């Protein structure tokens, strides 16, 4: 039977030099950091860089016993993500220094491939939306227009745009066969 380590146990075992706990930290946290990076940096390579940098910073802190509340590992990693993105935006070059210190053998695992999307089915699903729903979805995801911009075009309130967008997303997910 495989017993999954909780976050606090991972922190404890990394402190005592367990390489398997470090691998588990990477396996668990890398996908979460990468998603954060995609959302805030909007670029696959930048998200990969962020993942690497945050994992190394986290590992550095855990090995040195700097995390005082081991059960708050996830919050610590999230906080590190936020700080690192701020650093990246300020043009900080900490990555090279950390890579020199830890070496390239601590690279995070390759990201899991994204969900498969049937593009022909998606085209049918988008065409099946009501006109206003389709307009909102396209203006949002193609035009990258804000709710305020869309509301001006549709002549409805921003809150109404959000309602239409939510309804359209649920309908698209249903049509694509994924749960809401």
């Amino acid at each position, binding site marked *: 039977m495989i017993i999954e380590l909780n976050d606090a146990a991972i922190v404890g075992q990394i402190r005592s030099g367990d390489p398997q706990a470090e691998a588990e930290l990477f396996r668990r946290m890398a996908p979460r950091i990468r998603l954060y990076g995609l959302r805030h940096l909007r670029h696959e390579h930048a998200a990969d860089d962020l993942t690497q940098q945050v994992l190394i910073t986290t590992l550095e802190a855990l090995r040195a016993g700097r995390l005082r509340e081991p059960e708050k590992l996830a919050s610590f990693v999230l906080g590190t993500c936020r700080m690192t993105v701020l650093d990246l935006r300020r043009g900080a070059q900490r990555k090279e220094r950390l890579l020199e210190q830890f070496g390239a053998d601590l690279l995070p695992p390759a990201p899991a491939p994204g969900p498969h999307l049937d593009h022909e089915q998606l085209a049918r699903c988008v065409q099946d939306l009501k006109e206003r729903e389709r307009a909102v979805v396209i203006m949002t995801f193609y*035009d990258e227009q804000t709710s305020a911009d869309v509301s001006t075009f549709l*002549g409805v309130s921003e809150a109404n745009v959000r309602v239409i967008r939510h309804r359209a997303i649920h309908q698209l997910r249903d049509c694509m066969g*994924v749960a809401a």
Partner: protein
Amino acid sequence: MTCSNPIDAAVLADYWLAALAKSDEEAVEEHLFTCDECGVRLRETIALAEGVHELACQGSLIMVVSDAFVKRATEQGLHVREYAPPRSGSVECTVSAEDDFLIGRLTADLSGAKRVDLCFCDGQGVERLRLPDIPFHSEAGGVTFQQSITYAKAAPSETMIARLVTFDEAGGESLLGEYTFNHTRTLPGPGAW
């Protein structure tokens, strides 16, 4: 492990769009850092958003679009072909292999209209497709729509009639405008369907 408090996919879409209030965004991120199930749902949402983006880029959707949509496509270096037949009139049109988007501009007095439908008819005036309750501005003086460039590139020479119709209080339909597009095929392909 099953998430006891899953984040709604639409909220995850708002998160991806940076459309959440700061406090809501922080709460979503804290959850995502402890819940891989919701992380999977976010990945699905991102894939959906990217799929819709790609679909829009292909120009194959038939839909009403905004001027901003056309402007953005042009700014991105895409080749946008536009036709604007006069109300009750016609225009000669075609598409080339280089075209990315095909746009029709229909002028009409929309003031007072509560609902407008856009109908597409064949050369004999038989309705083939209807986009009901399209978005419009009563003071805009018309409607801009996208025809499928994929369809247009494959279509033989043919006539398409677009109609804008509105409805009175009793639900009776009345014509706001009729516009004829005489499409001539210039790309190699079959002479007829």
